[in-house]
């Protein structure tokens, strides 16, 4: 064979299946095992020369907890304080704000809407936080705000996909998939990418928000539950006791070994290991998800109630998973779509409930991680998929009974904590009414490039070939930059 196709073949094979496996004792098919031992696998792979050294940089963070507020919380009611908007309250929206814009629900000429809650500067850093988040005010010095986030999608599903996969269309690997593809996982007995959902609904983008797109499905997020079985099919059937299960697995193992001796297929050896790992996962996942062994003061700190489906429980689980070296923990909390079309989401109704649901647990998470010395190496991300308009929503062209704001792709706020981020710091600014990011805008692509860098990954080198391109999380076709300013 010619040299060149050989090289090309190696490259392609490397990313589809082969190169993880070259060094695995069992040879073919041990993707999961390789996932767990990515570093070693890469280091000793025969084709190591063609594989980038990972991580590319000295990592600031080892793992991620991403708290996604699905539905997009209002930056104007939480962190992005705009006294100017107060003055404009009730005025018709200037035409310049409307030209060339598309809105989900606003039509014609809407009216400006003042910030609905009181703001205060808190902590030594003097960060602005509204009165909806009284607990969070106490940890404002720990976080780094990016107030100049902007996106180009104004509907939930595409915007969530963009934020989680770097592409508004379906079919691309998620942030967590890329990270586990790049870094593997340090815990062999738990999935490397775990997803927890609260608020009663999956996010608008559905399971694609943690899907593996075109990378092998082993990198997809595993949705776990804080109620019932934490991992689907984790529990033995009722009639199967642990003793019976162990006995059964021993038989399977012996017979599979016999099969291997006859067939010589290394996949059989892999399967033997996977069954053993499944057995260990049953114990370790059950134990990891059991909140009952947490002391009372921790339950008080988070506001947790074991057995409940809540954001608080998920925050505490996130900490437990971090302690067990799970690489990427993705939380979704649904219900932030504050249009004012219904009481459960209106700014003057349900919005405050959402704030209450997250305020104490997310504060506790930061406090708890810090007191355990885990915050430095854990990157915590909080935010929605876009922001909300400084105009009041006028759905169907009329004044609505409740108060709400429409989707605004032009500006939103996220915060970062731990994992080598600056603390008590604010990056970027919006205009006087919080409508557009005007100073240091950050796109989802910049966000991805920056977060990967924090994990020691070069977003331009973490690639996978698909549709004729070496695809990457930060989106090959769009510009992106690493926002160095947020790193401590």
């Amino acid at each position, binding site marked *: 064979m010619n040299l060149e196709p050989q090289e090309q073949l190696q490259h392609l094979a490397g990313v589809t299946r082969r190169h993880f496996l070259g060094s695995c004792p069992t040879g073919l*098919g041990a993707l*999961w095992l390789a996932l767990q031992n990515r570093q070693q696998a890469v280091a000793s792979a025969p084709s190591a020369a063609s594989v980038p050294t990972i991580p590319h940089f000295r990592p600031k963070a080892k793992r991620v907890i991403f708290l996604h507020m699905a539905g997009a919380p209002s930056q104007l009611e939480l962190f992005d304080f705009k006294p100017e908007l107060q003055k404009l309250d009730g005025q018709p929206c200037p035409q310049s704000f409307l030209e060339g814009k598309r809105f*989900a629900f606003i039509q014609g000429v809407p009216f400006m809407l003042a910030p609905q809650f009181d703001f205060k500067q808190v902590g030594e850093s003097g960060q602005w936080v509204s009165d909806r988040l009284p607990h969070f005010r106490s940890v404002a010095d720990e976080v780094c705000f990016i107030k100049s986030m902007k996106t180009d999608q104004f509907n939930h599903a595409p915007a969530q996909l963009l934020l989680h996969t770097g592409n508004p269309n379906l079919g691309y690997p998620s942030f967590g998939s890329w990270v586990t593809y790049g870094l593997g996982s340090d815990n062999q007995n738990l999935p490397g990418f775990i997803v927890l959902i609260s608020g009663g609904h999956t996010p608008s983008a559905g399971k694609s928000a943690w899907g593996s797109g075109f990378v092998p499905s082993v990198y997809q997020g595993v949705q776990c539950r804080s*109620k019932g079985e934490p991992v689907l099919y984790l529990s033995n059937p009722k009639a199967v006791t642990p003793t019976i299960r162990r006995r059964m697995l021993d038989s399977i193992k012996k*017979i599979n070994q016999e099969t291997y001796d006859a067939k010589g297929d290394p996949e059989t050896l892999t399967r033997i290991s996977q069954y053993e790992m499944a057995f260990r996962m049953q114990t370790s996942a059950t134990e990891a998800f059991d909140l009952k062994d947490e002391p009372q003061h921790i339950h008080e700190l988070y506001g947790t109630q074991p057995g409940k489906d809540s954001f608080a429980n998920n925050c505490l689980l996130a900490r437990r998973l971090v302690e067990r070296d799970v690489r990427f923990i993705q939380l979704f909390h649904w219900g932030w779509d504050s249009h004012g079309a219904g009481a459960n989401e209106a700014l003057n109704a349900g919005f405050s409930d959402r704030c209450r649901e997250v305020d104490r647990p997310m504060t506790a998470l930061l406090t708890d991680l810090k007191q355990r010395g885990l915050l430095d190496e854990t990157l915590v991300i909080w935010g929605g998929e876009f922001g909300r308009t400084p105009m009041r929503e006028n759905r169907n062209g009329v004044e609505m009974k409740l108060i709400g704001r429409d989707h605004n792709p032009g500006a939103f706020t996220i915060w970062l904590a731990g994992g080598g981020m600056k603390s008590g710091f604010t990056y970027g600014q919006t205009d006087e009414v919080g409508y557009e990011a005007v100073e240091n805008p950050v796109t989802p692509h910049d966000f991805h490039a920056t977060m990967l860098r924090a994990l020691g990954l070069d977003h331009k080198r973490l690639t996978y070939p698909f549709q*004729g391109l070496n695809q990457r999380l930060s989106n090959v076709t769009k510009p992106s930059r690493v926002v160095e300013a947020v790193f401590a």
Partner: protein
Amino acid sequence: MVSSPNLNRCFVVAFLVSSVTRLYAEPERVDFSSQIRPLLNKHCTSCHGGVKQASDLSFIYEQQVLDSGIIEPGNPQESELLHRITTTDPDLRMPPVEEHPEPLSRREVELITLWIEQGAEWDGHWAFRKPAPPDVPDVNDTLWSNTALDRFVLAKLENEGLRPTDESEPTEWLRRVSFDLIGLPPTEQELLSFLDACESNSDNRLATYQAEVDRLLVSPHFGERWASMWLDLARYADSQGYEKDNHRHAWPFRDWVIAAFNADMPFDEFTLKQLAGDLLPEPTADDLIATLFHRNTQTNDEGGTDDEEFRVAAVIDRINTTWTVWMGTTFGCVQCHSHPYDPFRHEEFYQFMAMLNNTADHDLSNDYPTLTYPENKDKQELESTVALTREHKALREQLNREGVALAEGCADWTKLFPTEVSSSHGELEITDDHLVRVVGGTIPANSRYFVKTTATELRALRVEILPESDDPAKWPERGSVLSQIKLTLELADGTSQPVEIHDVIADYLAGPFDPKDSLQENHQGFGGYPKLHGPRWAVFVLKQPLAPPAGAVLSLELHQKASTSGGQSIHLRRFGLTSSADPAWSSLVAAEDRGVRQEELQSLAASLQQLKGTPIPIMQTRSRDYSRPTRTFIRGNWQTRGDLVVAGVPETLHELDLANPGRTELAEWLVADDNPLTARVLVNRIWSELFGIGLVETLEDFGSTGTPPSHPALLDHLAVQLQQEHTWHIKPFLRDLVLSSTYRQANRITPELLERDPRNRLLARGPRTRLTAEMVRDQALVTAGKLSPKIGGPSVMPPQPEGVWQAVYSGAKWKAATDADRYRRALYTYWRRTSPYPSFMTFDSPSREVCSPRRIATNTPLQALVTLNDPVYVELSEHLAVRVMDRADSLPEDWIREAYLIVTQNQLTNTTVTELVALFEATRSEYEKAVDSEAETDHDRAAMTVVASAILNLDEALVK
């Protein structure tokens, strides 16, 4: 590999050329496609390629390179290219020193030198050249080959110094071929009669095998198994996708695919029907259902989404899917820029788009256009629905066309000057050119405009709805619909009388609304919905000619109730009025035969209204008279539209010799004799289904960035065979494959062979691959004796864990079937895109949001948890246990032997039987000693269930 240690690193070109000549006694012939193209891709095209063309130089297109003068064919010394890659001057060296410190390797330079010396021939990439029937190679072992394809395999093995593995045991082959052809394991009875036949006809094993293959090929389960493959490509699902992900009635398409495979529909016909079945003369219901292939794109029903944005997204998905499925070529990147590696230009994407851009669907939540599928699923009623719909459409268009002809021929259109305008909401003004337009405020749905004009003699009033912008590149704009018009004549004495309208003629009929609804109290009407693609007009023909007295005023009330998703009002934003007094209008509407036809139309419409059934999305073309123009999207952004394009296919590929081609021509082009890709891509896909890996591993990419074929001649041989010998029939093609000596090899791997060829690219052994997600389920059903034999019908819901479905804004619930639908084959499982059936996902099935050309099989602990603990498998294990225990006078050992045979088709070895009997005994004694065991409990059955589950979890049970 030749390299001389004497060569100095900083050689000069002249020296190099002479050295190359010296080194090769007989210089090797350099192949552009396999040796030079990869070098250019590796070192040059990232700057001089399809995306970036630094110094206007691109190495993708031959002409550009020739024109640039950097290569002197036959004369390396004079070639700038060679100079630039070998120079030591850092300012000139390519690729640039700062980004690429290492120059091209010596070997690479040698190759380029030789290539130029040999004339710098630029033959395109292999996959873009039509396959020629290759000569069947000579082999040393003339006995091994069973079919021509074996000789290609054997020739390569002999060349590598390898021998094929011995033929597999009949049971191993039977399990493999049964899964491969029908997706199910052989039943116990099928196994036994096959073994009997093997024994009684031991001289002629081939005949027995052939008979077995023929049995499988006519099985109705054949279509089910191959449909599973096609449905991944067709991104078939039971829901619309995106946030709401509402239910979609798509299952008739799934059944159509099953039936097409069962009938061995030739692939060219299969292609034509799916891409353009609706354009066949007098299409049948099946032809229409086939077009659901490209209606499987997602519909975004989230509140406030732009229907044009997601219509465009659907069309782009259709383009990419078409290229992936038929051409095995990555075309998606051409949306934003010319292809970085393959010769496809940016504008060619849009030329291709123009063939698919003219369909009537528009991301509407009701999936318009649809076909009503009768509730009773009666085929005859379905066909009569199709006929009725066709008749209704034809008559409706005929009646409208008569009016259009008159409107276009009418000479006395006179502009009406509005004298006064007002609106219930927002602000209107009369422009200098006597149009009415919106100038400000908020105009919600349900607004009314009032327009007054001096009443003149008139028989027909024409309303022209205009876009806000006169620049066609800005179209389409948001919709603009007049949902009801009322005319009143106001007399000078203050009295008024209504003016009755008899008929509505629209410039053209498109979209789900009937222009005549503008005379009714409903939300529909005349105009652009959901988008306004350009100026529109409708003529309102009066019942009686209007002959107003002096000083009378004609007053118009325009009611606008229509809105799009998110409650966005789609009112008129700019419009004008003209009138005609031509008596021809009165004669048109008064004509007796027109009256009769109008009545006929009404009765057809009434019959259509009465149809009870579910709406199935289908393809429909907008008439050429008002076809949607296609423009390029600058840098791929659908909101930044560039120049108009003419429909066509990329220049580098075979011609599509017809002006203004549409979907039919596209389908014909895909399966044309000259198409270099379709047959190769298809045979490769089928090959990978059987062998676990394609001859071209990247099933989805045959372009220059895909993997080169392991057996290029074999690939071409198979492609030509399928296309010519089998005239696109898949069944005889598969028959050849599964009877080949290559396929019939044992799948045992020796350590030496594993070392040499871990992935079986050389085919020196039979394939051993993991069962697909569907096969894992279906095997458990068959072995438990529970498989429902029913083929087709609406999707079903087998048990799934609680709480998996939590979709936003949807009350849809998973209700596990309790009847025979609990035991249907995997492909009938309800497929919700945002929440696919979890155990299938664990076994690598895709979510089917977009076309999935390849499943990469993994091997994970989560899979173990499914087959060990999923209640579905626990239940089926118990059925398997009960089934084998159901023999009188049998012992646990017999049960175990039986269960093992049913699941793996193999006899237990002694050690295995000992192991499983020990498991049985140990488990039973566990149950016996359990303190809280109920007296009634059948310990044998419980223990046998555990053993059955263990057997279903064996490696042997999970592979074929």
